[in-house]
């Protein structure tokens, strides 16, 4: 996803690079059960319907309320959740999931494979109009049903063979399918509640889930409480309750509330606060930096012949003239990390060292080879971006770096977010020069990067870049079942991407938050789908 929904407002000006401590008093005792409460900031969630959840406010709570079939650990290994095991047919087309016996919904009904079948087909129902329907397109028959070509979901190849066995057949081999299954849209839905309450089934009192926690109360725009689900099949969490304080702007309001001891964790600490936080004797010991799997880049129209950016040498020159470390550490004050490649660390295909090197000297040479020695005759180009403090600062820094290093002039144009989005959508057909944007992982897999973003048939960012070799590498990678081969395919593809540079990488994303010393085991996940299990790992120490 393009992230603004996840870590909404901007991250910027921080001071120095203060030490980020992760001190936990190891010997402190656990608090009593009644005090196992975490007070957490969030925005008002839209709802907890797996079919249409799409942004952080609901994903972080929703993934505590429902169990997906499987999830992935930090090392990228699949871990069983509601499915006790699963098999893939040798041709890579058929996935069979075996559910754990004896699982119950929070209202006591048994969890069956039919609940998953219903939920998956429901996401594809055109009447539901889910933004994430495309996450189901690898399944045979899914596209036709979602497009309305057929009126019933009968031909969508998902079937509950019996109460505990679910089978899904792919249209073509998709090695990343288990990753998709681990996302929130693939979580089950209690059909009887949906049919009884319509869209109100997501309200407290009507909501039924099969997760570790269950929705206790929800006062819109005020607070929301989830409590440990007594009917949960798995290990019982130590944490008994999470109280979410709902506010329109947790990024700004959570720090004062945290300082006044109304919250145990802050949201992303804001640019205006980070210097003070880092120099505060108490707060400075409570801040933690977490990686967020994502990259901000300058996306270029590679086919616009009126723009110098259609020449790969110009893009390479621009890339090499950027001081990535200075942007991350000085301009963005260490909140983010420098990015010299597109795919972020943690995702297959990410490269430890970029294929292009040589710095500003090489950049000047490339610019000269492109026909603009010393920047002479360079026509200039325009960079647009959606209003965001981070991008405002980065755009100015880039303008300055290119002026100093390459003696070229760049025009900057900041846009109001929706205005930018409309412009962005028009870039699919209209020529443009370049824009700043960012992408964050829904799930940490190259299918969520290389295939969606740069395969010339998908081309999410409208760079119109077309490289036959790249396309065949990433398509082979998506289907490849052998992990080592898959890695090799995506790394070869990434080398092409980072050499041709339809997008010039600038920084990888990150988050800094403060956590009270009595909260043990809390860690922000690197991708949206990894919210699963986050609250189950938290323990409150005596304080």
């Amino acid at each position: 996803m393009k992230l603004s929904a996840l870590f909404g407002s901007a991250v910027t000006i921080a001071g120095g690079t203060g030490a980020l401590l992760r001190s936990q008093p190891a010997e402190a005792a656990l608090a009593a059960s009644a005090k196992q409460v975490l007070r957490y900031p969030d925005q008002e969630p839209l709802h907890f319907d797996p079919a249409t959840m799409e942004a952080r406010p609901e994903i972080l709570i929703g993934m505590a309320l429902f169990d997906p079939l499987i999830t992935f650990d930090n090392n990228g290994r699949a871990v069983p959740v509601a499915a006790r095991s699963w098999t893939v047919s040798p041709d890579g087309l058929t996935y069979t999931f075996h559910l754990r016996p004896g699982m119950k919904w929070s209202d006591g009904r048994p969890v069956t494979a039919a609940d998953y079948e219903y939920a998956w087909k429901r996401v594809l129902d055109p009447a539901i109009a889910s933004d994430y329907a495309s996450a189901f397109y690898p399944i045979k028959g899914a596209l036709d049903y979602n497009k309305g070509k057929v009126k019933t979901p009968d031909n969508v190849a998902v079937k509950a063979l019996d109460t505990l066995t679910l089978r899904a057949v792919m249209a073509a081999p998709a090695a990343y399918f288990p990753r998709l299954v681990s996302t929130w849209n693939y979580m089950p839905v209690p059909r009887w509640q949906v049919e009884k309450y319509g869209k109100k089934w997501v309200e407290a009192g009507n909501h039924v889930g099969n997760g570790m926690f269950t929705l206790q109360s929800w006062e819109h725009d005020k607070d929301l409480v989830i409590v440990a689900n007594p009917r949960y099949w798995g290990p019982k969490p130590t944490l008994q309750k999470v109280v979410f304080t709902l506010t329109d702007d947790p990024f700004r309001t959570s720090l004062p509330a945290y300082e006044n001891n109304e919250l145990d964790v802050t949201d992303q600490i804001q640019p205006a606060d980070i210097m003070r936080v880092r120099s505060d004797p108490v707060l400075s010991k409570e801040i933690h930096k977490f990686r967020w799997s994502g990259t901000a880049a300058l996306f270029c129209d590679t086919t616009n012949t009126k723009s110098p950016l259609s020449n790969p040498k110009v893009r390479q020159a621009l890339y090499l003239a950027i001081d990535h470390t200075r942007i991350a550490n000085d301009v963005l004050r260490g909140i983010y990390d420098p990015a010299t490649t597109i795919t972020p660390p943690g995702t297959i295909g990410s490269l430890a060292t970029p294929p292009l090197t040589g710095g500003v000297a090489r950049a000047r040479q490339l610019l000269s080879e492109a026909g603009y020695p010393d920047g002479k005759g360079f026509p200039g180009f325009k960079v647009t971006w959606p209003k965001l403090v981070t991008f405002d600062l980065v755009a100015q820094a880039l303008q300055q770096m290119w002026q100093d290093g390459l003696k070229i002039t760049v025009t900057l144009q900041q846009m109001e977010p929706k205005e930018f989005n409309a412009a962005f959508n028009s870039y699919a057909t209209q020529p443009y020069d370049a824009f700043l944007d960012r992408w964050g992982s829904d799930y940490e897999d190259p299918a969520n990067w290389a295939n969606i973003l740069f395969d010339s048939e998908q081309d999410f960012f409208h760079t119109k870049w077309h490289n036959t070799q790249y396309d065949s590498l990433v398509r082979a990678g998506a289907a490849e079942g052998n992990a080592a081969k898959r890695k090799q395919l995506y790394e070869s593809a990434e080398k092409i991407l980072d050499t041709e540079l339809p997008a010039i990488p600038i920084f990888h994303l990150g988050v800094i938050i403060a956590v009270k010393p009595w909260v043990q085991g809390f860690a922000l996940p690197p991708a949206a789908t990894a919210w699963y299990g986050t609250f189950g790992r938290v323990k409150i120490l005596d304080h």
Partner: protein
Amino acid sequence: MGTYLLRRLLLAIPTMVIVYTLAFLLIHATPGGPWDNAEKPLAPQVLANLKAKYHLDDPLWKQYVLYLDNALHGSLGPSYVNTSQDVTEIIKEFFPVSLQLGAAAMVFAIAIGIPLGTLAAVYRNTPVDYTAMGIVVLGISIPNYVMATLLVTVFAVVLHWIPTGGWRGLLDVRVLAPMVAIGFRPATTLARYLRTSLLEVLHQDYIRTAQAKGLVGFRVIVRHGLKNALTPIATVSGILVADVITGSFFVETITRVPGIGRYFVTATTGRDYPVLLALALLFAIIIITMNILVDLSYALIDPRVRYQ
């Protein structure tokens, strides 16, 4: 009086139609639509499904008629953003909070503004007047969100006297920070208008007459001065009330008050057309109501005003 009221109410109808038309046109003319969201790849089919679901693939005139027709039948439509709620529910749930907070802020404004303005007028060109007008200048120059931030920082974060935010009704301590933040500026506006108006009244012959007849001090000012100085105050109050009861996005956000204020902003940034239209209509109704009430109040304040 009855005919007058009826005439005013009938006149409100064309006003509302104009407001609706302008709001509708402006909303649809603004670049970017509700699903021009670059958050994730919206497949063209998904977009088509969404547009069909909310009738956005109909011609504009049809949408104009459809929404108006539904609105007249009491249905303000679904929210595109808060998909589990209807616009009517959003207004029912959050507007009363802004209304209560606004009423509290207005009471605060009157309780501070009237004495402040009176003191400034009576002790004109003395340190009392200078102090009062100093406060007025502060109130006019400090935006309410700065005030809210200051109050929260000082009284919650530093002194720990109040929580940093939240809402538990009018009788809870949490109401104080947003009430003062929203009410301070109207208080100073009232004080400024009252000072000017009262100074004028205090130079009138009848005041001199009252004083000549031996009446002294605050009795003259309150009974003969203040009452006659209130007409301009009633005029500005109408606008001030309309302003404070529709909620302040910033103050509600900073102090975590679940009011309608934030919807004015989130509906705009989210291009949530039904919510935007409903809020434009709600705001228009409030302004029209306040204007009528202000005009009626003249009759109470000034015996020379008669409505036929």
